[in-house]
C-alpha cells in the first residue's frame, strides 16, 4: 500500500503549481465540503484520530470543538509555520513543494470552525517557502478557491501570510498570537486558551502546517481510510525529518507505528561511514534522548515512544554516532534554549542560562564534582513551573543525557 498522503506530490514536476495539484485531485472535494454541515466536518476529523503534528499531539477535531459556536466574535485560524525546533524541517518542504495542500486544508478547517480570516505565521528565515506559498495563494484567489463566495458556496475566506522575526518562541501558539498582533512574542498565561480567547481576543484555532495538510485526504477519503494507516492510538501518517550521522538525511513520510530502526537504517541509509549508532533524539531537540539500544527497539507512534520515556514531538529525528560528545551535544541545546527563552518566567530565564554556563565550564575543563547534581536540580526546579513548556524542553534533555550518558559528564567533573 502506498503510504504517501502528505508527500504524494513531492516527486511531481512543478508540484507547487495549482494545475499540478488539481490534476492529482486537489480542490475537487470543496463542493463536497460545502455540502456538509460544519459540525459534521469536525466529527469526521475527530473520527480520523488526527493529532497535532506541531509537537504536543493534541487531537485536532477535539481542539476545533472547543471553539464556541455561539460566540458573536469572529473566529480565526492561525497556521503555525514557524518550524524552528532543531532537527525539524518537514513544514518547510510542505510549504515549498505542495502549498496548495495546505491552502485546501485551511479552507476545510476554516469552514468547520466558521473562520473567514485565516493566517499563516511563517518563520522569518523561510524566505523561499514564503514566496512559494504566496504565489500559491495568489493562484487560489484567481481560481476562486479563496476570497468571497468560494465556488458559489456563499463561504468567504481570506488568507494572510505573516513573517516572523527570528524568535523560536514565536512557534509557541500564544507567543505566535502575540507576535501576530504586533506585540512582543512571548507566551500568554493559560487559561484562557486560544480556542476561547485567541487572536485579537477572539476564538482561535492554531494548527501546525502538517496537521492542516492532512485534512484534504481525510475529507476526500473519510476518517476510516485515514485510519488504515498507523496504529489505533496514533492513526495516519507522519513526516519525520532525519538529520545527523546518516547516509541519506531528509524527510520521510511513514505510517505511525513504523520502526525507528527501519527509518534510520533503511530509509535514511544507515549510519555514515559505517560508524556505530550512539543516540537518537526521536521527536525534535526538546524530547528525551534514546540510547542506540532503545532506538533500535521502538516504534514511531505516540504510545510506544511514551513507553520509552520520550515523545514523538515534531518528528525531528537527530541521529548521533559513536563520535558524538554528549556533553557538547547537551551544551549546544542549553545554548539554544537559553538563547531562545523569552525571559518572562524567572525559572526559565535564569535556569536555562545557568545550565548553559555550567555546561560550558565543564567543556572548558573546569567541571566540579557537584555539577551533575546541580544540573539535575536546575532542571527539576524549572520544569513544570513556567508559563510555557520551553523550560521543560531543556529540562528533558538535561535529565535524559545525564542519566543515560552520565559517565561522559562525570569524566569532565573530576575535581
Amino acid at each position: 500500500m502506498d503510504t504517501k498522503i502528505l508527500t504524494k506530490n513531492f516527486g511531481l514536476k512543478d508540484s507547487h503549481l495549482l494545475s499540478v495539484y488539481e490534476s492529482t485531485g486537489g480542490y475537487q472535494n470543496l463542493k463536497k465540503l460545502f455540502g456538509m454541515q460544519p459540525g459534521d466536518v469536525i466529527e469526521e476529523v475527530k473520527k480520523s484520530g488526527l493529532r497535532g503534528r506541531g509537537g504536543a499531539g493534541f487531537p485536532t477535531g477535539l481542539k476545533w470543538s472547543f471553539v464556541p459556536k455561539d460566540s458573536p466574535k469572529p473566529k480565526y485560524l492561525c497556521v503555525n509555520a514557524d518550524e524552528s525546533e532543531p532537527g525539524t524541517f518537514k513544514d518547510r518542504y510542505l510549504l515549498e513543494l505542495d502549498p496548495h495542500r495546505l491552502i485546501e486544508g485551511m479552507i476545510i478547517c476554516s469552514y468547520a470552525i466558521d473562520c473567514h480570516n485565516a493566517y499563516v505565521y511563517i518563520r522569518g528565515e523561510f524566505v523561499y517557502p514564503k514566496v512559494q506559498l504566496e504565489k500559491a495563494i495568489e493562484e487560489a484567489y484567481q481560481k476562486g478557491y479563496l476570497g468571497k463566495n468560494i465556488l458559489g458556496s456563499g463561504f468567504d475566506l481570506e488568507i494572510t501570510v505573516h513573517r516572523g522575526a527570528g524568535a523560536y518562541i514565536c512557534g509557541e501558539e500564544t507567543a505566535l498570537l502575540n507576535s501576530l498582533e504586533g506585540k512582543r512574542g512571548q507566551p500568554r498565561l493559560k487559561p484562557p486558551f486560544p480556542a476561547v480567547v485567541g487572536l485579537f481576543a477572539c476564538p482561535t484555532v492554531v494548527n501546525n502546517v502538517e496537521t492542516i495538510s492532512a485534512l484534504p485526504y481525510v475529507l476526500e477519503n473519510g476518517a476510516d481510510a485515514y485510519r488504515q494507516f498507523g496504529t489505533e492510538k496514533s492513526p495516519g501518517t507522519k513526516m519525520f525529518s532525519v538529520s545527523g550521522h546518516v547516509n541519506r538525511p531528509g524527510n520521510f513520510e511513514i505510517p505511525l507505528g513504523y520502526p525507528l530502526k527501519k527509518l534510520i537504517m533503511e530509509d535514511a541509509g544507515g549510519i555514515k561511514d559505517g560508524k556505530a549508532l550512539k543516540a537518537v533524539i526521536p521527536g525534535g531537540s526538546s524530547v528525551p534522548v534514546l540510547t542506540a539500544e532503545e532506538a533500535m527497539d521502538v516504534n514511531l507512534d505516540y504510545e510506544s515512544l511514551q513507553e520509552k520515556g520520550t515523545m514523538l514531538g515534531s518528528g525531528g529525528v537527530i541521529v548521533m554516532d559513536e563520535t558524538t560528545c554528549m556533553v557538547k551535544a547537551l551544551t549546544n541545546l542549553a545554548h539554544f534554549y537559553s538563547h531562545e527563552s523569552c525571559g518572562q518566567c524567572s525559572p526559565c530565564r535564569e535556569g536555562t542560562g545557568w545550565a548553559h554556563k555550567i555546561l560550558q565550564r565543564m567543556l572548558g575543563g573546569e567541571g566540579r564534582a557537584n555539577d551533575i547534581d546541580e544540573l539535575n536540580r536546575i532542571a527539576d526546579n524549572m520544569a513544570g513551573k513556567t508559563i510555557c513548556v520551553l523550560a521543560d524542553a531543556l529540562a528533558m534533555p538535561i535529565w535524559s543525557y545525564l542519566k543515560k550518558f552520565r559517565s561522559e559528564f562525570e569524566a569532565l567533573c573530576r575535581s
Partner: protein
Amino acid sequence: MPKLTIDGKEITVEEGTTVFEAARQMKTSIPHFCYHSKLSIAGNCRMCLVEIEKMPKPQISCNTVAQEGMVVHTQTDNVKALQKNVLEFILINHPIDCPVCDQAGECKLQKYYMNYSVGDSEFNESKVKKPKKVDLGPNVMLDDERCILCTRCVRFCDEISKTGELCVTNRGDRSTLRTFPGKKLDNKYSLNTVDICPVGALTSKPFRFQQRVWFLKSAPSICTGCATGCNIEINHNDGKVFRYQTRKNEAVNECWTCDEGRLSYTFINESRLIRPLLKTANGLEEVTKTQALAAATEALQKCSAEQIVFLGSAYESNENNAALKKLANNLGVTALQYAFHEVENPSSDDFLIKADKNPNRAGVSNLGFAEFSGELTGKTVLAMERISASQIEKIRSQKPKYLILLSSHQSPACELADVVLPVCTFAEQKGSFINFQERIQKFEVALAPKGQMQTAWQFLQEIAQSLGHAWAITSPEPLLKEFFNLTYEEIGEQGKLLE
C-alpha cells in the same frame, strides 16, 4: 460563590476570585513579585506557586481561579521548597547590592531572602552584567541588574497612566527593561513605578541616595498639590521631609499619586519663616512674638468691625480657617473672603490631577468665606497664605490700611504686610481638608515646628485673648467639633464624605 479550602480552613469567595486573593482575604499572604491588585495578571515571577489537590503540577495562585471544592496548600514544605527555588533563580543574577540600594529595608526580594534563608547560592558562574544607571526619564533612574522583570512598571504604564513608554527588550537572561526607542518615561504619574517596583531597580531621582529608609519616620497626611487630596505618608528625618509615599484610599487615589504632587514636598523644607516680622522704616525686621502680636492686636483694636476684612485660605486647614471665623464672630467682622493658590496653565486630567491647586477650597467655602474679590482699600486686613500673584497685585494696588499676614514662607505677600506671623505648614500640625468630592480627610503632625512657628489657630487664639475673648483651645479638635460637628475619630483614616 465557590467554597474552597486553604490550609485547612474553608472560605467562600466571589465567583472569579483567584486563589491568591482568596488567601489574602483569609490574611494568608502568599509571596509574590509580579502580582499587583490594580494591574493585570502577568504570572511571570512564579513566586506564588501553591499546591492544589488533584492538580498534577504546582499552580501559580495569582492566575488560578478558585473553584468549588478546591483544596489548596500554601504552607507545606513542598510549597516552601518551590518558593525557595524560584527565589534562588531570581537571585543568581541579582547583584545583591543591598548595602547601597535605596530599596533596602522595604525590598520584597530582601525580605523573602531572609524569610527563606536561601543562604549561599550554589551559583558559581559569572553573573550577567547589565547597566547600573539607565536614565529612563526626568524622575526615574533604572538599575538594570536589580530588575527582576516582574513587568509591574510596564503594566502600570500600559494600564494606569496609559502612556505605554516601557517595554522589555531582548530575551532570556539578557532581557532588560527599556523605554521604547525615542521615548522617555515621562508621564504625570511616573514615580508610581518606583513605588510598585518590588526591588530597588527603579529609583526616584530626587530621593536617590538621600536617605536609608530605616531612618525615615512617617506620618499619614494629605497631598496639598491639588483639590484631589491624595492620601500620602510624609517620610521625614531630622526635621526635613525626604519624600511622600502613596497611602491607599480606594475612594480617592486608590494607591497612586501624581509626580507633581509627590514632589511638592520641597516647599516644606525651603524658604521657611521662623520668626515674626514687623514693618519698620528699614523694611521688614525680625521681632519677638510679643512685639508682633501687640502690633497686630493694636491694629485690629483701632478700627471698627466694618473696617476689617478677614482673608481665609483655600490652602489652609479647616481648623485654621475655623479659628479665623471664630475670631470674626467674636469681633463682628462680616467681610470674609478667602485667598487661594493659582498657577499659570494648571495641569489637570480625568484621573487624579485637578486644575484647582488648593487642597481645601471646599472647606473654606463651607465656612462661609467667599472667593477673593479685593475691596480692601483703607481696610485692616488679617490674611492667611497662600495668596496668588494676581491677588497680591490687587492687594498692592488697593492699599489696605494695615495687613496682618499669617505666613509659613518668605513669600511675595510678606512684602506688603505690616506684620507677619510665622505659621506651620500642614506638615507641622494636625488638621483636615475637604477635597473636591466633599470628602473631609485628616492629616497628622509630621515635623516639629521650628523657631517661633505656631499653627495659625494658636496665633489667632492669642490675638483673640489679647482682644479680651476667652479662648482656651489646646488642640485643633474643638474647632473641628464647633464648626464641622466632627471628631478626628469620625473622620477616620480614609476620610468621610460630607452629606
